[in-house]
């Protein structure tokens, strides 16, 4: 119970450091590089939530326990939230660095695809009344969506060159970051992941209460 206060203090610290601590000079980015502390962790949580949702969906299909469906939907719901956050932070950064909020960079296209999948998933869920049918249909859809995503890794790089800055761990496998930046970045990554897990656990607890009331 007390852990949430600790999480609050941790995130507060991360935000203060991320916004105020001086960062080293980076060509063509400068202070705009600070978006890294927020954009990358939210994007990471989006992918994590997508993965978790698919794992819970498979679990549901194997065990037919309705709780897994609640878990999958909770993970997907939080994933959608973080996906929107990652898209918005990315778009704002793109406005100041590339000159437009949206220009169909491969990275933007792939996050747009994730938004579409999450949107379709919830559209399907709200269009089905019976609880068991809803669980089955949405799990099947989650699995189907998950297996089509890898094709993007082959298609997207060929369409246009990406202008997106290097991933944190670049092609040579080295972490190309200043020491103080790296510390803040890792703290932020840990903080956002923790925030996600904390929110997910609350949602799952709520689902359990709803289930026990139904019985």
């Amino acid at each position, binding site marked *: 119970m007390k852990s949430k206060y600790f999480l609050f203090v941790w995130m507060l610290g991360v935000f203060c450091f991320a916004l105020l601590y001086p960062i080293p000079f980076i060509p063509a980015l400068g202070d705009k590089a600070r978006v890294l502390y927020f954009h990358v962790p939210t994007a990471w949580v989006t992918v994590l939530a997508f993965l978790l949702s698919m794992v819970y969906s498979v679990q549901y*299909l194997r065990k037919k326990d309705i709780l897994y469906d609640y878990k999958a939907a909770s993970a997907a719901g939080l994933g959608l939230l973080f996906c929107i956050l990652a898209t918005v932070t990315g778009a704002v950064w793109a406005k100041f660095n590339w000159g437009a909020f949206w220009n169909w960079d491969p990275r933007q296209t792939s996050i747009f*695809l994730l938004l*579409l*999948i999450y*949107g*379709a998933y919830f*559209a*399907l869920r709200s*269009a*089905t*009344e019976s609880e*068991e*049918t809803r669980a*089955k*249909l949405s*799990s*099947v*859809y989650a*699995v*189907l*969506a998950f*297996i*089509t995503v890898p*094709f*993007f890794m*082959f*298609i997207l790089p*060929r*369409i246009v060159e990406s202008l997106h800055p290097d991933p944190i761990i670049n092609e040579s496998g080295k972490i190309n970051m200043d020491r103080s930046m790296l510390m803040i970045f890792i703290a932020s990554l840990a903080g956002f992941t923790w925030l996600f897990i904390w929110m997910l656990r609350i949602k799952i607890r709520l689902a359990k209460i709803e289930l026990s009331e139904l019985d």
Partner: protein
Amino acid sequence: MWKQALAICKKDFRSEIRTRYSINGLIMFIIVTISIIKFSLGEEKLSNELHAGLLWIIIFFSNSSGLSRVFVAEEDRGTSFVLKLTASPKSVFLGKLIFNTTLSFVINLFVVLLFLVTMDVKIASFGPFMLIIVLGNFGLSSVMTIIAALISKSNSKGSLYPVLSFPLLLPLLLSTINGTWLSFEGSGITELLSEVQIIVSYTIVIITASFLLFDIIWNE
């Protein structure tokens, strides 16, 4: 399995030929769509890239207005229970897949014909163009069939169909649009090889997953 599947497919064809329920509507849908595009374009000249995109937009929406019927009609008529009793899920899916692929082939052929007649587009290499259309047709109909099975069990059967199928189809559509554009420009088969690889592997993955997942949807 094949025998049952072919019997189901034959049944669907027979009921389609007797009622002409989807095909009449679909033909009108395609004509209306192409005339809207013609009216809005006027005398405008389009680039090959835009033509390729337009062609696949028409194909996608005409398929998504017709292919859901195979499963939705079974639910509406209440005949799905009888089908469940008489045939195994795998042969039901295979039969519906064959039917949908054929229907989609007819739709696409009609779209392409009408498109080539009405639009001012020259195809530099015809063989590769047809290859992309036919392979794309297989991928499209396999995704559309499993999504049709999904939405036939949900409450809203119409509007959800393109919404659910589009995210899954996006990788396929991007490579077919690219392939079509290249064939308009006159690329040979070797330049299209990577597109063909993606389309074929995508179709195989989708069909395999559909066969595994269809049991769960069908026996709810």
